[in-house]
């Protein structure tokens, strides 16, 4: 057959197909819209990160370390030195600040040296809107708006930082790197470096991040910057390990990694929606194929070969898929615009995401065809002798063809998953999971329907029985709708159950006797005051431990720099590898282990000739050490060797004072130490204790556990809501499928309605029967998906998150009821035409 023939037949058939295939187009449109939406958002954010990379970094080049940095300028390559760069030095640390009224809170301090050049990239907006050197003096600060919103401060007030008074000169309205602010350590306070030195906080050994930011002229290329990065890493002591050098192209690696993970996850969720749409397409095609069987027989009788009929129908499907995909791509491309409406700070410059749209359309076309193929193969069954006898025996379908069509479908799903994630293991895992869950839903649906069919007729009201019987009719095509609805509902419920469980755990995470406040950077001489204030606050539990800050210098004779280089080449999570080795190690000493620690290997303090160290099990695995490994620490420039003599398991959820590293008592007695305290006080007394400490010893950092857990819980809940929206699209496609399956059987339903009306049923009674049918469908798919979601969430929570609580049954029940209601609504709307048809017209129509 010539392409022209197919095109002509396509045009002819499409005249009558418009209404019939609206659901087909809608299914594909929703699926493609979600895929394109996620990809478009991802492109938009990537573009934003690239366009604002200098702002995110704070310049062209950044050098960061946990100890004071040397002068970087002489170490830069000559061309960069000659470019007369501008630079700014920053110190970032957490500390409790106090207003004149005595109210204290934890804040993140950013001290700037080179105020006149700050910021090197981006814009700092303040109120009042005056140049920064006029606002920020050695005795003034700028504070985040959160201070004003809480009513603690206003411009002109005094803020005590490290016990020293500073005038609040203004409010930070917008920072160049808003994403750099940590959610844990409180709102931002800007000050000068000289002002920070006045507070003595630097001298008292606070955990400080030192950043040296550089901005060069506009003509500098990325390759020159990268060369400068390499030069600095080789020349700076600890470069590449303890000292981190980044160009703007690498800004916010943690954020990028998080976004990358989120992108992969969302891309798979979006693909799942499209796969459900594909199942919908298959369902609609199957129903349509049954309806056009007489026409197919005529075509076969006239001389079309089975494969020519398949090509003809496949061309129709591709045409409709193209329409649906184009529509979906257009809708999905609006996602960044919608994001900008909800989050104006993420609006940015809008582009048409052509690549995302092209990928979405490609996926839509491919999956529509692949899902339709196993169904279209059925044209082989249609015997041309059907033109003579409607009960003509079906012809056999070549087994190889059927196998090939299913193999193509499975390969297509795997290919689509790989296309979305660019990772074969992830694609394979996703494909197996989807296939497994779909099979589970299918089997469960068929089993439940079979069980329903065994309920004695006498026990069920007549109309309800007929409603259920419609669902049980062979070839009703509603089992596939069940699977699609179930898959979408499974995603929504799983996310809802898991986020609810995590939010609940976070908000209730504190064991009854857990500390409610931690205090860091306590000097030994300050401890009696801490105890006194805690007692006054009715503390029911007071713990403390001595802490020595150190850097890990070597493991089994190999330097940390060497290990960082080796692991960067081989390990997948390079940032974590670097962090484990180069972080500031906090070592405590104790003769006996606290209750939350359990010795699992080795013995404690049993080797007299060596300095022993007990290491937490997971940390030991991350470090790559075991019993007998040698660890050398740099304690204020003095190398101190240890041998790992035991491994411990720590119950971190006890929230007690616990450490990765415990040194043998006596080894570090001469090293500079500070104390760490943990107290449990009534909630109403926490603020008073914090205020008292801030007044008396402003160097002490106080972390309130409940606040952090509440904020984390809120974030998890918000994230859960956002993710649930993705699952809702899956349910939407399932509902469209259901409506499509019902609409496709419009003629049969109209005849049924005509017969029922003729037999004397009222319209309300017929609606009731339909409601039973659709409600049961929703109930069956809801029950199976809710049970599966409950089980999956419980297993995941127990095995991966180590949570013992069970997901919410109420959420599951609500999920089932919501799905029932949706099914009834969609089904009745789709049946409206059949319900309106006149019995006489329908019964006289010779079909």
């Amino acid at each position, binding site marked *: 057959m*010539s392409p022209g023939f197919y095109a002509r037949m396509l045009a002819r058939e499409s005249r009558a197909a418009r209404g019939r295939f609206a659901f087909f187009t809608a299914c594909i449109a929703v699926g493609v819209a979600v895929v394109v939406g996620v990809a478009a958002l991802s492109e938009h954010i990537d573009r934003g990160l690239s366009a604002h990379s200098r702002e995110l970094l704070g310049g062209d080049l950044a050098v960061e370390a946990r100890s004071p940095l040397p002068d970087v300028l002489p170490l830069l390559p000559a061309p960069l030195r000659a470019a007369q760069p501008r630079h700014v030095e920053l110190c970032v640390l957490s500390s409790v600040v106090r207003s004149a009224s005595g109210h204290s809170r934890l804040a993140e301090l950013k001290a700037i040296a080179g105020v006149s050049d700050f910021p090197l990239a981006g814009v700092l907006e303040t109120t009042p809107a005056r140049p920064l050197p006029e606002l920020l003096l050695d005795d003034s600060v700028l504070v985040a708006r959160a201070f004003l919103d809480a009513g603690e401060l206003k411009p002109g007030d005094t803020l005590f930082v490290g016990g020293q008074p500073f005038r609040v000169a203004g409010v930070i309205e917008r920072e160049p790197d808003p994403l750099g602010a940590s959610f844990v350590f409180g709102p931002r306070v800007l000050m000068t470096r000289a002002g920070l030195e006045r507070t003595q906080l630097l001298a008292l050994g606070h955990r400080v991040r030192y950043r040296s930011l550089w901005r060069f002229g506009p003509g500098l290329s990325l390759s020159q910057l990268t060369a400068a990065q390499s030069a600095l890493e080789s020349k700076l002591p600890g470069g590449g390990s303890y000292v981190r050098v980044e160009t703007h192209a690498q800004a916010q690696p943690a954020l990028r990694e998080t976004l990358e993970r989120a992108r992969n996850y969302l891309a798979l969720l979006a693909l799942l929606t499209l796969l459900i749409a594909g199942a919908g397409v298959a369902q609609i095609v199957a129903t349509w194929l049954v309806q056009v069987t007489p026409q197919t027989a005529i075509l076969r009788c006239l001389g079309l070969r089975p494969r020519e009929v398949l090509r003809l129908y496949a061309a129709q499907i591709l045409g409709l898929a193209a329409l649906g995909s184009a529509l979906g791509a257009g809708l999905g491309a609006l996602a960044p615009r919608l994001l900008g409406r909800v989050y104006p700070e993420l609006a940015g410059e809008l582009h048409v995401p052509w690549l995302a749209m092209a990928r979405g359309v490609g996926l839509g076309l491919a999956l529509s065809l692949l899902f339709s193929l196993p169904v279209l193969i059925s044209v082989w069954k249609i015997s041309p002798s059907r*033109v*003579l006898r409607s009960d003509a025996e079906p012809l056999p379908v070549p087994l190889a063809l059927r196998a090939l069509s299913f193999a193509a479908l499975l390969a297509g799903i795997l290919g689509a998953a790989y296309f979305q994630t660019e990772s074969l293991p992830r694609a394979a895992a996703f494909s197996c999971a989807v296939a497994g869950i779909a099979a589970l839903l299918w089997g469960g649906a068929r089993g439940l329907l079979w069980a329903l069919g065994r309920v004695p007729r006498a026990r069920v009201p007549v109309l309800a029985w007929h409603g259920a019987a419609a669902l049980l009719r062979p070839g009703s095509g509603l089992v596939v709708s069940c699977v699609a609805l179930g898959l979408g509902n499974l995603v929504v419920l799983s996310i809802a159950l898991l986020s609810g469980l995590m939010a609940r755990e976070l908000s209730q995470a504190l064991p009854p006797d857990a500390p409610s406040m931690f205090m860091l950077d306590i000097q030994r001489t300050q401890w009696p005051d801490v105890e006194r204030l805690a007692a006054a606050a009715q503390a029911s539990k007071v713990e403390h431990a001595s802490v020595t800050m150190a850097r890990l210098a070597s493991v089994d004779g190999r330097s940390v720099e060497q290990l960082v280089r080796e692991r960067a080449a081989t390990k997948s999570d390079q940032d974590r590898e670097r962090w484990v080795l180069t972080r500031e190690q906090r070592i405590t000493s104790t003769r006996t282990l606290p209750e939350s620690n359990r010795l699992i290997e080795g013995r404690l303090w049993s080797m007299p000739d060596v300095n022993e160290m007990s290491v937490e099990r997971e940390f030991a695995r991350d470090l790559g050490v075991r019993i007998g490994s040698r660890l050398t620490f740099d304690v204020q420039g003095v190398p101190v060797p240890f041998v790992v003599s035991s491994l411990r398991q720590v119950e971190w959820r006890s929230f007690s004072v616990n450490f990765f590293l415990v040194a043998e008592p006596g080894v570090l007695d001469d090293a500079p130490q500070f104390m760490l305290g943990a107290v449990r006080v009534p909630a109403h007394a926490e603020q008073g204790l914090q205020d008292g400490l801030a007044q008396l010893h402003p160097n002490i950092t106080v972390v309130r556990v409940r606040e952090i857990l509440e904020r984390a819980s809120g974030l998890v809940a918000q994230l859960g809501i956002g993710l649930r929206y993705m699952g809702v699209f899956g349910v939407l496609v399932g509902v469209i499928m259901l409506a499509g399956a019902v609409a496709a059987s419009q003629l049969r339903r109209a005849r049924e309605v005509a017969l029922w009306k003729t037999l004397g049923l009222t319209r309300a009674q017929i609606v009731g029967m339909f409601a039973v049918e659709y409600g049961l469908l929703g109930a069956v798919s809801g029950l199976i998906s809710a049970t599966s979601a409950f089980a999956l969430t419980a297993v995941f929570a127990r095995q991966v998150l180590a949570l013992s609580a069970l997901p919410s049954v109420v959420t599951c029940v609500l999920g089932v009821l919501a799905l029932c209601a949706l099914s009834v609504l969609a089904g009745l709307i789709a049946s409206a035409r059949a319900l309106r048809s006149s019995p006489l017209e329908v019964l006289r129509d010779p079909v």
Partner: protein
Amino acid sequence: MPDSSPRTAPPSLECRGLSRQLRSGNLALTVLDGIDLCIAQGEVVAVVGASGSGKSTLLGLLAGLDRPSAGQVFVLGREITALDEDQLALLRRDAIGFVFQSFQLLPNLTARENVLLPLELTRAKSAAERCDELLARVGLEARGHHYPSQLSGGEQQRVALARAFAPRPRILLADEPTGNLDADTGERVLSLMLSLREDADSTLLLVTHDPRVAERADRVLTLERGRVVAERVS
């Protein structure tokens, strides 16, 4: 059972020992039982019999629409029993036209498009002219843009005739072509069909339960319980 006598020219349609059984639950029903038949080129043969006698089944087997349980079928001298579905489709496309009791027009195509379809399948030259010629021949030149649902039964059957004769088939098979028409319309359709057959010099096998229709054939075979029980030459 009387045998059919072949003419000297190669037969258009022939079957030897043709049998067909259909399954109904656990029972096997014998619809045709050892039919031997030979129809010469250009012959008009009617097959008559009561409902359920196997007439339509015989037509279906001779057209390659169905497969026999036993026996052989020859179309234009070629045995078709061993052909696969593709080969049978091509045979029907190239050599056989059909007219059915229920017209069997494609509902989504106009009358003109229905007539064009077999010409497009055979990639016939001047398909549009041939189509218009036939529509005029059947008196529907002004109705070509109408859909089957907009035509009366007689008009639909005339479109079906135009479609069947469009590619100038060597063989025409008609299954109760006037079965759904009133007497007058049926007579007009029958006359048209025979006229078109004569123009195309096609062999015509006509299945009917109407003796008045059968009278117009050269030869009439009577089927009863799957067997030819009588044969009459007009």
